[in-house]
């Protein structure tokens, strides 16, 4: 693991903080997320430290619970993307031949359909349950991870220690898990972190369009959507979840930087990198 620099610290501390907030949401939030405690968009008070939202619910509590929702949905989706993408990518990269052609070409087709549009088509027709949303996000991002994993597997697969393993008559599973995976892991973890950011942004965009997590479940994109009318009157309720998304994305970027130990890493593409 590369050396930890001072400049990485705020990001890592921030991420831990976010995770703690999500984990301990029930204890941290002063009110239940759906409880109406005042009028719409009340100014901050002792009762509601960040003010209230469009329905008069405590914004801080909703933000805390939203952290839990956004983080967990994103994490599970990213995990699905990671597992599916890595497995298929490795198999394609190592096996080569028609298996590689099949996996890669199907993946190419999926990638050539703009992500957002694919997501819209699917989410407009399927029930927007958490499971479906997670699956859609996971599968869409898996295509990106698959490409990286395939390239990595092909690169590592060309190394001579893989030749040695093949000369030993090792099976595919051993080669994938013991020879390739450990060597691909740092880059894959950094890729995972990046995908995490994209999924987070993507999820919030979907929620903002009303296609993501459905109310009253609090999530960041949904919070922004619920409160967006207030922005015009200088009510910051909608901008706070937006800022939370931005800060978390920055934290994870830093983490990925640290893991890759380089400052030339490619980051920041929206949904098409």
């Amino acid at each position, binding site marked *: 693991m590369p050396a930890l620099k001072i400049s990485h610290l705020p990001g890592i501390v921030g991420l831990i903080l976010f995770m703690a907030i999500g984990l301990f949401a029930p204890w941290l939030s002063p009110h239940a997320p759906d409880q109406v405690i005042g009028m719409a968009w009340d100014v901050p008070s002792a009762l509601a430290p960040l003010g209230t939202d469009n329905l008069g619910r405590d914004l801080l509590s909703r933000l805390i619970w939203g952290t839990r929702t956004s983080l967990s949905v994103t994490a599970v989706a990213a995990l699905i993307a990671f597992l599916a993408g890595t497995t298929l990518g490795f198999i394609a990269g190592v096996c080569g031949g028609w298996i590689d052609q099949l996996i890669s070409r199907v993946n190419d087709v999926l990638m050539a359909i703009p992500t957002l549009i694919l997501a819209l088509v699917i989410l407009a027709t399927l029930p927007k349950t958490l499971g479906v949303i997670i699956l859609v996000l996971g599968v869409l991002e898996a295509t990106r991870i698959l490409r990286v994993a395939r390239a990595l597997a092909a690169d590592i697969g060309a190394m*001579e220690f893989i*030749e*040695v393993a093949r*000369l*030993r*008559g*090792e099976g595919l599973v051993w080669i994938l898990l*013991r020879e390739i995976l*450990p*060597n691909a892991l740092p880059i894959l973890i950094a890729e995972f972190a990046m995908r995490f950011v994209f999924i987070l942004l993507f999820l919030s965009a979907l929620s903002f369009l009303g296609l993501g997590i459905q109310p009253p479940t609090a999530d960041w994109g949904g919070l922004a959507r619920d409160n967006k009318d207030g922005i015009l009157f200088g009510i910051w309720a909608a901008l706070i979840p937006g800022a939370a998304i931005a800060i978390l994305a920055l934290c994870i970027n830093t983490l990925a930087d640290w893991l890759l130990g380089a400052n030339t890493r490619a980051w920041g593409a929206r949904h098409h990198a």
Partner: protein
Amino acid sequence: MLDSSGTVAPPLLAVEQLHIVASGKPQRTLVEGISFSLNAGEVLGLIGESGAGKSTIGQAILGHQREGMAVTGGRILFAGQDLLRSSEAQLRRIRGKRIAYVAQSAGAAFNPALTLGEQVVEAARVHGLMDAQAAREKALELFRRFSLPDPEQFFLRYPHQVSGGQLQRAMIAMALCSGPDLIVFDEPTTALDVITQLGILQAIAGVIREAGVAAIYISHDLAVVAQLADHIMVLRHGRRVEHGTTGQILHAPAHAYTRDLLGAERAGNRPQTVQSETAPLLTIQSLSARYHHQPVLHGICLNLAKGRTLALIGESGSGKSTLGKVVCGLLAADAGSMTLEGMTLPSTLRQRTRDHLQRIQMIHQIPDNALNPKLLIGDQVDRALRTFTTLNRDQRQRRVMALLDRVGLDGTIAQRYPHALSGGQKQRVCIARALAAEPELIVCDEPTSALDPLVARDVLALLRQLQQDTGVSYLFITHDLHVVKEIAHDVAVLCEGRIIRQGRVDEALGAPLDDYTRRLVEAVPQLRQDWLAEMTGYTSSSVSTAAPSPLHAY
């Protein structure tokens, strides 16, 4: 300390007490108190193993440090100017104009996006030394001088369109184009095969004498340096070991390390003699193979006897490594057959039984690539034992220790990862891993070419010892004839995918020789100062100038 040549005139270059460190915690000293001086027209050879600080010194002379390096003391006086205390702008007026640099890998040192001509004349043009027309004329003249084919065309070519040897010569032309006073040659022939190397050495020797430029020649190969240098400085771990005239270093080395270096190059050892008529282990008949759709091997017929070593030699691209892969089963043959102890040896890995896999093992050229960086050394050796033996856990553990001990490694290495090991240690681990299978044949694909001479010598000695102890046979792929003489009983000469010569080493490489083999044999630098001069029969024109085959390293 200043080792002046004794002349009264101030030297062209004087390096005084140079200290360079690698930043980081803890700081690592790369160059420690190096001093020397160089007069106009003189050639100094810097010799040493990897990590000796040769290249760091070479670049410091141009006032350049790689990222993460810093000069902490000393002076570098060039024509009276201290380069270490000069501004970037001042340095720019010297770099490329008065001091030129020839890098080790011309393939990487040329910008792939620009034509060779542009790059060769760039320094002369930027420094305003001549107009475009004159610069071009100069470059063409140098191309002609270096026997580069069709200079006018060559001028317009891109780096990827020419061979490695041609690029290296173009690199020297680039250094010479602006007419510098000093050229730093940083291992300019290290990555080349011997025949190409010979051509380059002749070119360098010619221009140094003719143009009267001073030069610093950096190499790990004493025989090469001996051909060019007036003085030689031997370096080790960033410190000076010994400094003297070439003759003095070659004939009267003062330091044990220098003597070791000399010893490593003078092929002294001979392979253990075994009965010449043992049973054949591996027989190859009329074997053809292709690599990436290109036919590479044509009708190969070979015999390897039990307990003997067969060396495969040939130029880069002659198909040596491909043959090794076919024998191992990594590459399927198109035609022909192989038998192992009289039994048919299937061509692909899939068809081979565990027994086949166990009996043939392989040692790769670059041990870094052959070891999984993320697995413990012990586990990597253990895996081979688990696959090929029926030993239980405890037995295997003991066996791993025994194998490591056998290849001269400490048992504690088993608990380390490859990156904590030196190159030589890694190669020994690879050997131990191959031995774990108790094989009958080990295919060695240039196992010593990436190692420093002294380390290579020890690894060869180990291989010899193991053969003696276990009776294993080696198919030994190499381009280094020193190595052939040290380890092989038999030799096969490969030329463009065909075996043109085969037999016992003494007979096969003894007179009378065909041209190809003769060139291979004679192009090996010898540890005497007049070797290069004697090679005049080998004018550059006889050196292949054809474009590299697709298999060529460049």
